[in-house]
Every structure is written in C-alpha cells, then in structure tokens.
C-alpha cells in the first residue's frame, strides 16, 4: 500500500520543524529516514502517525487523505511504533498484543476467534509466542521492542511506521530487530517506513533513504546514492571512507580524521 507525503509542513507552536516535504513510499518498499538531531525526523513521523496536525500539506494512504478518513479505518491499514510508549506493570505480552485488535473490534469490544488468530500470528511472526505470558516490563529491551512490534502487527496493517526502533538496544538486539523488520518486509510484503540513527544500518536494510536537513528533504535515493562523500559532509559534516560489503552489496563507511584528507578508495560512492 502506497504512502504519499504532499508538501507537508509541520510546526511546534510557531516554529516550523518540517517544511514542504514531498516524497512517497511505494508499496512493498522499506524506506528509512535519516538526518542529524533536530532535523525533523520524529516530527515528520508524528505527523504521518496523526499525533501532530500538519500546518499544511497532506498525507495520502492508498490515495486517500489520512486527515479525512476515519481514524479506526486508518489504524487497520497503518500501524505505528512510536519512540515513547509504556505498558502498565501487570500487562502481559499477550494483553498488549491483543490491544492491536482494537481498530478491528465492534461496538461490543469482544475479541472474536479471528482476532485471537491474528494475535497468535503476530506473536509467531515476532517469535514472542514463548514469552506471551510474561509481563511486558520484565522483558529485556530487545524483547520489549519485539512485543510492541507484535502489537502493531496484530493490527494487520499494510504499512508500518517505526520511529527509531533500535534506540537504547545493544548491538546484538539491534541486529536482531533489524533482521525481523527486514523479514517482515521481504516475506510478508509489509511496506515499512522507519527512522534510524545509524547510517550503516540504514544502508544495509533500506531500498531507499531519505535525508532530512533542517526540516527539508536534502536528498532521496538508494543507499549507494546516499552513502556518498558530498551527502555525508553536507549533512553530517564528516569525512568518510566508503566501502562496499562483498556479500550484501551494500555500501558502508567509517568516518576519518579530517587532516587525513578525503580518501576515496574505489569510487563506490557512484
């Protein structure tokens, strides 16, 4: 399912944080938004997630404006994992994941057999079935993120938004989570838009990357187009050595000291 941003501007009070942003996420695509701190990444996500009302512009989901459609109908197509979330201390993983069915429930609010199947499937996809009876707050950081993704999957969405899903996780859990996200995209055909801090991770897993700078789209392109000397020096003010992974074929870089100068080993920047 396609997600389009048309001339989107978002402000906190009078201060515009996101300005005239337009791009679209194609059906089945995994797109990552990167940018320096304060570049408007999370604000942009919040506007798409309906938590912030845009100053102007529209977000189209499957061709229809999310500002006009019924919010429950949108929740059946678009799921969100925000940065800030909390579960009451005695909620189990299954309790939490069950709430993913909220947009599907009727007036009576009771879970049907279909709902229970959807919850089981969501637990299965995130490998949380063995932990379903555990209290969410007793899980490790990585397991907790998987539980919340499981809740989002129980919505049976076509598009998933993830705002810095790997923050606060150690490297093994980051890897585990990104692999999960990748699998959901490749095997379930879920359209995914996420914000990441780590550019190498973005380059490894994304089809395309959007670079935000001062609330505007600086550049949008494939990992090879984004992991480039000009982009990284303009946006992040770093000099880098760019390499290419021999197996996955994705570019990656390491920052280098500025006095060493900019060494381009093999022109992988394209």
């Amino acid at each position, binding site marked *: 399912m396609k997600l389009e941003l048309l001339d989107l501007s978002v402000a906190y009070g009078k201060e515009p944080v996101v300005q005239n942003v337009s791009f679209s996420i194609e059906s089945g695509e995994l797109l990552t938004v990167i940018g320096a701190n304060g570049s408007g990444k999370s604000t942009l996500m*919040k506007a798409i*997630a*309906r*938590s912030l*009302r845009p100053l102007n512009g529209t977000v189209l989901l499957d061709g229809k404006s999310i500002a006009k459609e*019924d*919010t*429950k*109908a*949108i*929740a*059946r197509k*678009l*799921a*969100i*994992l*925000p940065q*800030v*979330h*909390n*579960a*009451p*201390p*005695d*909620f*189990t993983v*299954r*309790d*939490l994941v069950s*709430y*993913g069915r*909220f*947009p599907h*429930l009727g007036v009576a*609010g009771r879970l049907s057999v279909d709902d229970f199947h959807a919850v089981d499937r969501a637990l299965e996809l995130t490998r949380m079935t063995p932990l379903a*009876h*555990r*209290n969410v707050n*007793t899980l490790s950081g990585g397991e907790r993120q998987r539980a919340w993704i499981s809740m*989002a999957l129980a*919505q049976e969405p076509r598009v998933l938004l993830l705002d810095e899903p790997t923050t606060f996780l150690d490297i093994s859990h980051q890897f585990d989570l990104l692999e999960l996200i990748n699998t959901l995209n490749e095997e379930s055909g879920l359209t995914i838009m996420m914000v990441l801090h780590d550019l190498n991770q973005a380059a490894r897993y994304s089809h395309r990357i959007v670079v935000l700078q001062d609330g505007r789209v600086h550049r949008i392109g494939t990992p090879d187009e984004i992991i480039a000397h000009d982009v990284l020096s303009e946006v992040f003010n770093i000099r880098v050595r760019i390499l290419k992974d021999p197996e996955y074929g994705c570019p990656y870089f390491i920052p280098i000291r500025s006095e060493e100068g900019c060494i381009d080993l093999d022109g992988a920047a394209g």
Partner: protein
Amino acid sequence: MSQTEAALGPAAGHDERASRTLRERTAYRLFVLLVLAALGFLAFLVSISLGALRIPVGEVVRSLFTDTEDITRQIVWNIRLPRTIVGGLVGMSLALSGAVLQGVMRNPLAAPNIIGVSAGAAVAAMVLLVALPQFSFLLTPGAFIGAFGSTILIYLLAWKNGIKPMRLVLAGVAVSAFLGAITNTLMIFFPERVQGVIGFMVGGLIARTWKHFDVIWPYALAGLTLVSLHAKQLNILMLGDEVATGLGLRVERTRMILIAVASLLAASAVSVVGLLGFVGLIVPHIVRIIIGSDYRYLIPASALFGAALVMACDIVARVAFDPVEIPVGIIMAALGAPFFLYLLRRGFRSEA
C-alpha cells in the same frame, strides 16, 4: 477495617500472578470481585444495624423486606437506609472518578481534587454558608456547580492545541490554590460562622436522607455506565497518546469525555457529603494492587470497594465515640492513610 483487610487474602499470591495462565488470572479477578461485592453487602447490612439504637441484622433484613409498621422499620427506612445508600453511592462515585482520572492523566496522584472538584465545591460552600447564609438552602446545587465549573475552567486554561495531562495537572494545582485563597479569605472575614462549614469541609454523612439520594443517583448511575463503556479505551490510553492514536482511538475526544464524566461523578458526590477527597485517591490504588490495572476489572472493583469503604468508615464514625458522631471524612483519613501506606509497601515489595 477488618472487612477490608479480608479482601487482601487472595492477594497473598500476588507475586506469582505473572506466571499464572490467563484462565486462572480471570478466575482470580472474578473471585476478587465476588469478595468485594460480599464485603459491600456486609457493610451495607452492618451499617443499617449499628448506631444509637442497635438493630440485630435479622431484624434489619425483616424490616427491609416486610412492611409491619413499627419503630424499627421507621429507623431503618427513614434514617439508616438512605444514609447507608448515599454513603455507598458517594464512595462508588469518588472511587470511579479517581480511577478514571489516574488513567486519563497517567498520573498516580490524580484524584478528583486535581481537576478542581474540591476547591470549587469549597468556595461555593463557603459563599453559601458563610458569606450569604440566607442562601444556604442552595448548598447542594451550589457546590455541584462550583465543583463542575472549576473543572471546566481548568480544562479551558490547560487547552493549547489539545490537552497534555501534565499541563492539566499543573493548571489544576494553580486554580485550586487560587480558589483556596478565596475560601480562606472568606473564613477570615466571617470567623464566627466558620463552625457551620467544618462538617462540609471534612465530609460527613450525618443526617443524609432520601433527598440527598435523589440528587446523587442519576449521576452515579450514568457515570458508572459511561465509565464501564470506556474500559477498553482507558486501557489503551495507558499505553501512551501516540500508541492510542495509532490504534485508532480519538485521544483528545475520549479524554474530554472521561474528564467530564469523572468531574460529574465527583461533583455530585461532593455536593451531597462535602469534601470527602481521600476515597478517590486511595481506592483505585488499593484495588489496582489487588486486582491489577486492567480497567475492565478495575472499574467494577473500584466501584464496589469505594462503596464498601465509605459505608464501613461511616459505621466507625457513628459507633466509635458514641454518642458523639465524627464526620466520616476524618475516619476515612485516619484509618485509610495508614492502611494505604501498609499496602503500598507490601505492593512495592512483591512487584520488585
């Protein structure tokens, strides 16, 4: 308080609860509800039985269900029964109000007084009883308007592109302080009349009759129904505004409805018995420790326990220093606060 302590029996296994299966957990919660209902019924009967004239429980039941005209029946129907029912409804309303506000604000200190209910009712009572005593017959509607009005004021002052719970709490504190200043000023100007409002300021059930029942029951019933219908929404609000929005909940609208309902519940209770604030704070906490934070169970449990607690405390208020009656608000704070602290320490230990 021995009845209320009995409710803790099942909570002994509280720390193992995480490992119980879903079925066992549901059975446990239903059992707790049953115990609370039994406690409420017990408090109800004992409250009618005890007082200046002691009526055996058997006699109470007989008077309730038969219509032989005698003095016992007069006392039961005209004095004890309305007072007990009003006490129960007040306890239920305040407990529900507190449970809802704690969920909506995601703040454990939220209680009816945080949205100005107590301060608003106090100003109205002070004006009507102290400054303009010729209008003291308007106390109940006046206190109601004062309580609900100050919630609306706080809500409007806190509004800025939507309501942030923290801003609402802070606006509530500020407005309450301001209204408190008015209350205290009036006290200083009319020191000789202050005696008359003490009963209202601490909250009491002395001489509460069917007239008061008529005031509170529509709000109690409508409030209970509306809150029950929003149990799922309250659970989802606890997950955070952004998650709730993502799940298709209209957060702003739901929050406004629930704050209005909580305010109406508390305002109707306070207008009838005075500032009985503590119930709204502690009952939801006690119940949460026993039954968990799932609002589908927290709502009925708070309603039952709130009703039972106020009825039980009113028994103590009448009997403890007989023939002097103490306002139930004092008993509530004197017994409730230590009991609450005890539970709090226990609860923290088993959650750690």
